[in-house]
């Protein structure tokens, strides 16, 4: 084999380290058999290295390749889509190790490794994942360096150091490119994630759904207000509107359920200055975006629906940042179309007869829809309803009757559902709204963190002249939920996040832990808004603020200038003269001493002992004999005698020795002596 193609043992070890480091963050998403392949591949390759087994033959390789395709198909039901592709890549990454015999195989493997780092970002752009990926890139680069260090069989820290140094040197230029490189629109559509679980709300709601979302302590989104943060009790983040009730399940209207002329949102007369805020959504794999009532967004890629929701035409696979404006004092749909009125008052024909009856009775006692709403809320408040995460399961054909007249225990979706049912039963247009309520204010960076457990359902009622008005029946039952959040409301039954005992949110009472959590969250927000959310619009703004008008010439100048600024120092530090001759500090300083003596014309001969050298130097330059004797004695003590001498411990002597060498400057002294003698003359 060509000597250039040999793979040093060190490189093989680094490659195996890389493999495990790279597969780790993917492990949770992969079928177990892929992970098993990693173990088998490493064991096989190590046995090959030890000479016990041999490299696989051609047919074994073909069989393994076919088997892995079949395996991925069996596990995912398809070979198309992001997850199966990544699983195939990772399988190839593992199998390549078995046939790694030459350097060119190692290149393929390591470049594949870089590519796998990128695929990790398609699943998460989290700060920790990014830092971990940087570690991975360093490991791959280290393996690449080790590949070019023939004959290194011991672990060599220098390999890792060189790789890290090079990456650090590349970092500033990377930043320049990152901020300057134009952001293009996608060139073609790419496989989407088909096998990742959707999180958060879904587009239908049955009793118990919101309660189950509330079990999660994950972050749903973070909000940054431009001005003051409004009171928490007013933060109703609308995401979904449920207008249809069928068999006890509330569902949203699909796009084609709405007649064509109703599909665009009505014109909303806005008054005054809006409240501006930006939201960074965590990936949900769903289309909903959240906003306060009534929200309007100018961010590209955000659409508005006929029920005044914000909506993303593509599912959110990665973090998504958008801005929105909200006008609170505004009439939405002040004139209701016939179709809309019909839809928003429609109920299934025959169920829950008792609730229908009481709705009609209550409506009859009031003079207006508004009074009726107030009366129903008052009923919830007075009649001993309980707000609970553990409402029990209703199985009868009339679940709302059961809830209203028997159990009277429910979570927000029970109240919202019963309330809207009563409105519709009395002919008042109403609908269920799902989203999040409240949020945690992070004092570190003044953002509002909305968690999954802030999930909430409430109602909207249409009142003549006012349009759609927000009504929260839960607030009538448990004002604490709206004022202080779910944790306070559930304190009496201890059911808050009881499924996730390790969530840091459960330890909010410990100030230090809580502060650390909030600081990390603030870092995440900054990370998401600066790096993850960086787009062509922000890019233009940034360039404009730095360089004014952007022209090709400015662009080229900045690029070249920054490259020169980074590369020239690197080149200088690489190519300047530096003494890396091996030796202890003692030897190095003695060498300095010899170089200084050499300035007097006395060069130490090969094989001359320090003592002989000193004697010769003292004879030739008696002026320096004290120093020469002292330094040489110290050197001999340190190099040949046991640790201590009369001057103290060896470390101390070494320090003294170094100082003595540093102050031994024969040429300068000589110049001074000559100067003084000439002055005396």
């Amino acid at each position, binding site marked *: 084999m060509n000597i250039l193609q040999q793979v040093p043992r060190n490189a093989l070890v680094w490659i195996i380290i890389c493999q495990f480091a790279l597969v780790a963050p993917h492990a949770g998403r992969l079928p177990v058999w892929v992970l098993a392949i990693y173990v088998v591949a490493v064991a096989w390759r190590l046995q090959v290295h030890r000479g016990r087994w041999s490299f696989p033959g051609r047919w074994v390789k073909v069989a393994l390749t076919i088997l892995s395709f079949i395996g991925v198909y069996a596990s995912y039901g398809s070979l198309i889509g992001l997850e199966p592709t990544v699983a195939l890549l990772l399988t190839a990454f593992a199998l390549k190790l078995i046939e790694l015999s030459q350097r060119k195989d190692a290149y393929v493997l390591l470049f594949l490794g870089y590519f796998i780092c990128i695929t990790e970002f398609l699943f998460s752009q989290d700060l920790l994942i990014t830092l971990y990926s940087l570690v991975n890139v360093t490991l791959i680069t280290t393996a690449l*360096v080790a590949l070019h260090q023939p004959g290194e069989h011991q672990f060599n820290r220098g390999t890792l150091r060189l790789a890290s140094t090079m990456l650090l040197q*590349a970092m500033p230029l990377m930043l320049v490119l990152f901020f300057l490189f134009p952001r293009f629109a996608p060139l073609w559509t790419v496989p989407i994630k088909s096998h990742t679980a959707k999180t958060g709300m879904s587009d239908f709601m049955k009793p118990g759904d919101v309660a189950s979302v509330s079990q999660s302590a994950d972050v749903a989104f973070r909000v940054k207000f431009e001005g003051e943060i409004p009171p928490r009790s007013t933060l109703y983040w609308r995401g979904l509107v449920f207008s249809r009730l069928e068999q006890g399940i509330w569902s949203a209207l699909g796009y084609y359920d709405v007649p064509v002329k109703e599909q665009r949102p009505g014109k909303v007369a806005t008054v005054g200055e809006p409240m501006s805020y930006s939201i960074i959504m965590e990936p949900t794999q769903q289309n909903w975006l959240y906003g306060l009532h009534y929200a309007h967004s100018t961010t590209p890629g955000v659409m508005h629906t006929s029920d005044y929701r914000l909506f993303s035409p593509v599912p959110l696979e990665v973090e998504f940042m958008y801005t929105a404006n909200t006008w609170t004092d505004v009439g939405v749909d002040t004139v209701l179309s016939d179709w809309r009125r019909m839809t928003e008052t429609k109920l299934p024909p025959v169920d829950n007869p008792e609730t229908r009856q009481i709705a009609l009775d209550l409506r009859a006692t009031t003079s207006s829809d508004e009074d009726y709403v107030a009366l129903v809320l008052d009923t919830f408040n007075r009649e001993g309803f309980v707000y609970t995460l553990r409402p029990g399961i209703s199985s009868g054909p009339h679940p709302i009757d059961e809830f209203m007249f028997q159990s009277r225990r429910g979570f927000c979706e029970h109240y919202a559902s019963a309330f809207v049912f009563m409105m519709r039963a009395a002919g008042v247009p109403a609908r269920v709204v799902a989203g999040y309520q409240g949020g945690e204010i992070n004092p570190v960076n003044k953002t509002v963190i909305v968690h999954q457990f802030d999930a909430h359902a409430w109602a909207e009622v249409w009142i003549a002249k006012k349009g759609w008005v927000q009504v929260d029946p839960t607030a009538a039952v448990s004002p604490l939920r709206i004022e202080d959040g779910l944790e306070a409301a559930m304190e009496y039954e201890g059911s808050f996040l009881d499924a996730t005992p390790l969530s840091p949110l459960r330890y909010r009472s410990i100030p230090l832990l809580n502060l650390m959590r909030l600081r990390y969250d603030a870092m995440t927000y900054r990370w998401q808004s600066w790096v993850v959310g960086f787009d062509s619009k922000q890019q233009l703004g940034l360039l404009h603020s730095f360089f004014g008008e952007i022209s090709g010439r400015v662009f080229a100048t900045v690029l070249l200038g920054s490259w020169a600024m980074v590369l020239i120092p690197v080149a200088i530090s690489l190519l300047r003269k530096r003494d890396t001759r091996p030796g202890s500090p003692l030897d190095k300083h003695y060498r300095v001493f010899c170089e200084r003596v050499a300035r007097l014309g006395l060069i130490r001969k090969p094989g001359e002992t320090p003592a002989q050298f000193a004697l010769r130097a003292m004879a030739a330059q008696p002026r320096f004999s004290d120093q020469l004797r002292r330094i040489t004695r110290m050197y001999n003590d340190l190099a040949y005698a046991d640790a201590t001498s009369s001057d103290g411990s060896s470390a101390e002597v070494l320090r003294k020795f170094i100082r003595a060498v540093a102050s031994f400057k024969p040429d300068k002294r000589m110049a001074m002596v000559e100067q003084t003698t000439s002055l005396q003359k």
Partner: protein
Amino acid sequence: MENVDSSTDQYGGGIRAQFRMRFRQWVNRRIPPAREVTLDQRRIFIFPSRVGFFFGCCLLVMLIAAINFQNNLSYGLTFLLATLFIVATLHTYANLSGLTIRALRAEPAFAGQQTEFQLMVERSKQRHHYALYLKWPTSSETLVSLVADDSVNIQLHMAVDKRGWFNPGRLLLESTYPLGLLRCWTWIDLDLRAMVYPRPVASPDLPGLATDTPDGAAAMVVGNDDFYGFRNYRKGDSLRQVHWKGLAKGQGVQTKQYTAYADRSVWLDWDLFPGTGTEQRLSHLCYWVLEFDRRREEYGLRLPGVVIEPAVGEKHRDRVLKELALYSKEGWGR
């Protein structure tokens, strides 16, 4: 790999050959022949390696992925690797810069055998150098690193097939350290040449052997040489003839003296092989030189225009072989 072999190339016209010649002239101007060369920016070339181009393709795929997925961190990683490529140029260059290559010696060889070139690579006292690959166009190859040592001696072998001075062409010194993405190399002419003796070709007998005695037949006696005594060792004596046992006894370094009969001194003459071509004659002569040297009999050489008086010993043999090697190759210089 571009080949700068100057001894075997054919100048067959054509653009390619023309280009090669021009290129060689340019290299000659840029890196003139010298026994000792220190590498600096005038002498070092750098260009992405094949692996580097492959890496570039990978980067392009990554960039397309970043664009299509609109993924900023993928952009970031792609740019990090791209700038790593750029930073690697400096590191790759630094791995060659400051090295000194010194020609040591070239071993003479017989045509059809291998000659050995010895050289030394020495670092300036700056940094480690890894994976230096050295090769002449037709020689064996070697891979050395300068980590613990300040210099390293290298032997490279190559087959030679024509007698005369053998010029190995330019030495290729290349390295792709540290990442393999860039190839940094130099072609240096170390002004080294190896003496190539004719290929020894046996001839069954030596018809009409010329000797000093009138009776030519007497010299053709083949037999063991007779040992006749010791003398003090002189520089140039064969180590095989040193009297090792005596040395061990403390008698000083002595050389065993053998003698062939004085009247057996042989003239190896150009005219001994009538009717054969020049190279054939030289090959036969070479064979007999070795044969008589083995027998330690005195022999002289007579070529057109060259006469070497009969003698014996390594120095004499080398002198004779040199004449054979360079016969009618005056253009090469001696």
